[in-house]
């Protein structure tokens, strides 16, 4: 292009343009070195410093293991259920064969991997069988009699099975109606527990009714009155009479604190005289009724007695609000409200409390309680592991989120506790480990320093980098391009 002859009008321009003297080769080389060293400084010093100072600290999380926990690949949870069989009236061989056959029948029937029922023949104890034997979930007492039937002991974890004299298998026989009967009975006794845990496992169906597990619950009993009377109630005596026994039984699993209050001039959220089913949802006037939430980390379960002029459409007077508590409409104008009048409300509250805690509905009380502790362990395990899974997904989904080392610590602690809980499933330590695991997982997940850098917009970054990188970067890049051009020319030439 430069060799183009100037047009005729430009003759008067510099008549003789001198070419600059040819460049010394060492000058050319020096220039290349200068550019090269600038680029080396930028790449070897500038970039690492920039990277180091602006990088977000992300502690390395064992993402794969966390995912494995979430998918239950890391540990296969099994509740070992030891069933003691007491066959005092049978001969040894008969008894052993019966146990063997029943075990076979059970193993054939069992399609639920979390339960492992194991039968043991125990020597006949002359005195009343000791129910508190820790690792025995249920004791079966075989009593000869007609017809073949099973009855649960109301206060002890004992299943009495009557059997006709011809039904026990001989030591050599390979099938027995009694064995099948026992297997079926056992299976039906654990059917509800199985259903609850399966519901927990299928994540869409979280238990809607029961509260989250907590070692302590606050029970709040409130008397709401539409007017100024009644304003006293004998709740203390009523609680100690009707509710305390159940609370005492639950003590190994939960602690309870009890407080009571009286609130006058309370208007419910629904004013109509007769309450329909749709109205029950908005009956609690959350804006005005002082039903304050939990304090000290323990959830509150509310039990509300409302004295007003309202009735429910059906004959019932009470309903339960899942994960919150229960309401009872009492029809009383006496002041104070006596213990007798509080009997029905408190009995209702007791049964609601049990279902709010997640106790199964069938079975005798000791069986219910042991089921409750197993269900709670399973629930906590599932919560903790799914939180781990969420955390793993979160850290993958948000690459700009910072992960402090406390989160990594929490995760490793959670996994250790999960491991322990999984090994000790079915006993008290298992529950305790599961509880710690769940707490640690929640703490790790809700670590607040993780969100600090999350909302730093890209515009700010441009505003910070552009003024510096523009004027510095352009000469560097053009210098590099020129140098490359020259180098190519030199190679061609």
């Amino acid at each position, binding site marked *: 292009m430069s060799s183009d002859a100037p047009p005729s009008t430009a003759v008067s*321009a510099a008549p003789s*343009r001198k070419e600059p003297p040819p460049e010394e080769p060492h000058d050319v080389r020096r220039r290349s070195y200068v550019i090269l060293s600038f680029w080396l400084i930028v790449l070897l010093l500038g970039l690492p410093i920039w990277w180091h100072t602006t990088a977000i600290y992300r502690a390395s999380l064992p993402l794969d293991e966390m995912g494995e926990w979430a998918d239950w690949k890391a540990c296969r949870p099994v509740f070992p259920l030891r069933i003691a069989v007491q066959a005092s009236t049978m001969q040894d061989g008969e008894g052993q064969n019966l146990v063997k056959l029943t075990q076979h029948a059970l193993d054939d029937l069992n399609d639920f991997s979390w339960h492992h029922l194991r039968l043991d023949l125990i020597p006949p104890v002359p005195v009343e069988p000791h129910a508190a034997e820790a690792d025995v979930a249920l004791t079966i007492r075989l009593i000869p009699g007609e017809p073949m039937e099973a009855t649960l002991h109301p206060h002890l974890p004992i299943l009495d099975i009557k059997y006709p004299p011809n039904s026990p298998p001989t030591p050599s026989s390979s099938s027995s109606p009694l064995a099948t009967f026992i297997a079926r009975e056992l299976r039906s006794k654990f059917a509800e527990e199985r259903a609850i845990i399966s519901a927990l496992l299928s994540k869409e169906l979280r238990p*809607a*009714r029961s509260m989250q597990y907590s070692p302590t619950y606050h029970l709040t009993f409130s008397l709401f009155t539409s007017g*100024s009377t009644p304003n006293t109630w004998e709740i203390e005596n009523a609680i100690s009479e009707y509710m305390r026994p159940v609370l005492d039984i639950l003590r190994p699993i939960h602690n309870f604190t009890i407080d009571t209050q009286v609130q*006058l001039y309370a208007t419910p959220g629904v004013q109509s005289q007769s309450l329909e089913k749709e109205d029950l*949802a908005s009956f609690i006037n959350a804006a005005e009724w002082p039903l304050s939430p939990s304090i000290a980390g323990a959830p509150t379960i509310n039990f509300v007695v409302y004295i007003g002029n309202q009735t429910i459409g059906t004959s019932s007077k009470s309903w339960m609000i899942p994960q919150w508590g229960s309401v009872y409409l009492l029809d009383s104008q006496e002041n104070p409200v006596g213990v007798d009048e509080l009997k029905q409300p408190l009995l209702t509250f007791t049964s609601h409390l049990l279902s709010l805690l997640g106790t199964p509905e069938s079975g005798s009380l000791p069986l219910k309680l042991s089921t409750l502790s197993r269900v709670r362990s399973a629930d906590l395990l599932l919560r903790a592991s799914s939180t781990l899974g969420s955390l793993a997904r979160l850290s993958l989904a948000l690459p700009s989120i910072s992960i402090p080392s406390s989160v990594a610590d929490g995760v490793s602690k959670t996994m250790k506790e999960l491991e322990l809980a999984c090994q000790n499933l079915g006993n008290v330590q298992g529950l305790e480990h599961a509880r710690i695991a769940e707490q640690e997982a929640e703490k790790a997940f809700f670590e607040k320093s993780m969100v600090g850098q999350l909302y730093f917009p890209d515009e700010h970054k441009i*505003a910070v980098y552009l003024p510096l990188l523009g004027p510095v970067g352009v000469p*560097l890049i053009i210098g590099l391009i020129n140098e490359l051009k020259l180098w190519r020319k030199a190679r061609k030439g």
Partner: protein
Amino acid sequence: MPFLVPPELHCLARRGEELAQLSSTSPDLEQSKLSHPNETPPLSEFTSKNPANRKRGRASINGRTTATMRFSISRLLTAASIIFTPLLLQSSPVSASSSSQEPALSQSSQPASASTVISSDSEYHEQLVLRPLPQSALLASFNFRSNISVSAFEAQNFRFFPRSLGQILQYAGTRELHLRFALGRWDAESWGSRPWDGAREGGTGVELWAWLDAETDEEADQKWLILTNALSGLFCASLNFIDGTRTTRPVMSFQPEGDHPNSTIANTHLLHGTLPHEVVCTENLTPFLKLLPCKGKTGISSLLNGHKLFDATWQSMAIDVRPVCPRETEEGRGECVLEIEQTIDMVLDVDRSKRPRGNPIPRPPPAQDLKCDPSKEYDSDNACFPADYALGQDWSLTQIFGKTLKGTCPLTDPNIPPVCIQVPNSRHIFTSLGNKEVKDPSGNSRCYYLDPEGSFEMVLPPMSKDGAQHTAESELVKGETPLLYAERSFMGHGQERGGVQAILRNPSWDTEVEFVYMESLPWFMRVYLHTLEARINGQKTSYDSVVKEIYYRPAVDRARGTQLELRMVIPPASTVFLTYDFEKSILRYTEYPPDANRGFDVAASIITIRSPSNGKRVPAGMRTTSLLLNLPTPDFSMPYNVIIFTSTAIALAFGGMFNILVRRFVAADEGPEVSVKRMRNKAVALGRKVAAKFGRGGKEEGKKE
């Protein structure tokens, strides 16, 4: 993990979930599912657990490590060097004085004494005392008091004592609690002494002090944190922002009001926090009313209305919880009770309150309605000096409060008149039928026993204009002269040097007044204590004669504020000017609030009068107004300006250096020709090239070449 979320928020947030799952499962009601109209599909694990969704109101109280210092005044003045002597932080065992419970037999015009005539037997009582003040102001003092026996409190069986508060107190190990929400300024010059002698008053914003049960300071801080967080949820106030920088441990100013056994008082810690910036409003009144047994539905609390309360010239809401033990009698000691006293004092502007809501713009009254002071010599038809007293202040309860008083709260002690008004007995007052009026023999107060069912209306009619005898005395009960007048203001100049001046005046002609003046200043006010100076009546006098004792705890940047307590004595009829200088520090960029140019609120100073006590409540006190401190405020686009400026400098330096190193220098006629013509030619050639490429094809170009 304790999550302390405001209950309303919490309740609302939770209710959504619960209602969606509500199913009626009572044993005697058939199983049925109720679906909530707003039922939403279950959120995925990830979205529902986004950490940003969870609210956190945690603040940390930094540990106090610096030793507390006490200046010895004499040394400060005599010795060349200041000698600090460590002060033992033991609070002296306080005698369980129950003087506040002592039945006050003297009939003074104070609302305090009007309602202290109450035995602690009744579980609940309430009373409203109205007192017209000069300049068309009206003081309304609401007082509600309920009890719970200590055993019932420990068993958590709450009846009239609010459970929500009781639970918090129990959990935070609080022995005695005082909480104040205040707004406005008490005009002591014209209104006289304060209601309750200032014992139920707080500084502007929120003030909280409590005696906490704790073995160590750290434990006390922990419990204080729990208490402030829980109360902030209960009262919808930002109390959780009372952190280490806003917390002090007063040494001289506060004494417990309740009866504490000597064994427990040794283990209690007094902590005090203020939030001068907090705007007190309706959302604080609603939870306050919820604590009352009658909930603002009946009784005097039915008059309370956020629109009027927060429109008041001055208002103070107080909650005081203290243990009260009955006097030892011959049958032995009765059971101690925990008493909660809720007080609302407000000074309403009668004219403003009477303004109709539909037409709230004030208009000048016609000339004949002006209230003039005829004692002025220039008073004529054309000149009017506004009357100092509200000549013929006339109003009715409904006009003033915008609501009617609905009966009485049925729980209240029937022997206590619910409504009292302090006007001279000679004034006429009309009330609705069915109420009993009882006039006080002192001639300055009357009370009303209300009809429990009907609504109560009271009308204060205007005084007849023609009667020549009406004076201020015949119309108003004159307020008592306060023991002390106090005001405080900023001095100093510029962005760096500041000063504080407190003017304290003892109006009495014969008695000296002893009090404790306490300042709790933010850390960014760096106080120079050596500039502390007290002048009596404008003359520099001996320092010792006024300031008897100083307790000073210097600030630590970003960790705690300055605490300054002065025990002072002011001789009769003299004014003390207390001044000190401070330096305004520059904050970090992120420490400025969004409205940095508005200024920073400095908490009111607290004055606790120790003597003369002359039969009044011991902790008589007052608060000065809060101050607004202007700090040097940067331009908040500064970081980007700095970035651009330094970048430009770097770019200039770098560009020059790089070019010198890389470019080759040749003589002017050796380099490529740079001229306009040449550039034009270049451009033309380029244009041709482009046209050739896209136009007729490459043939012509080939020919030319």
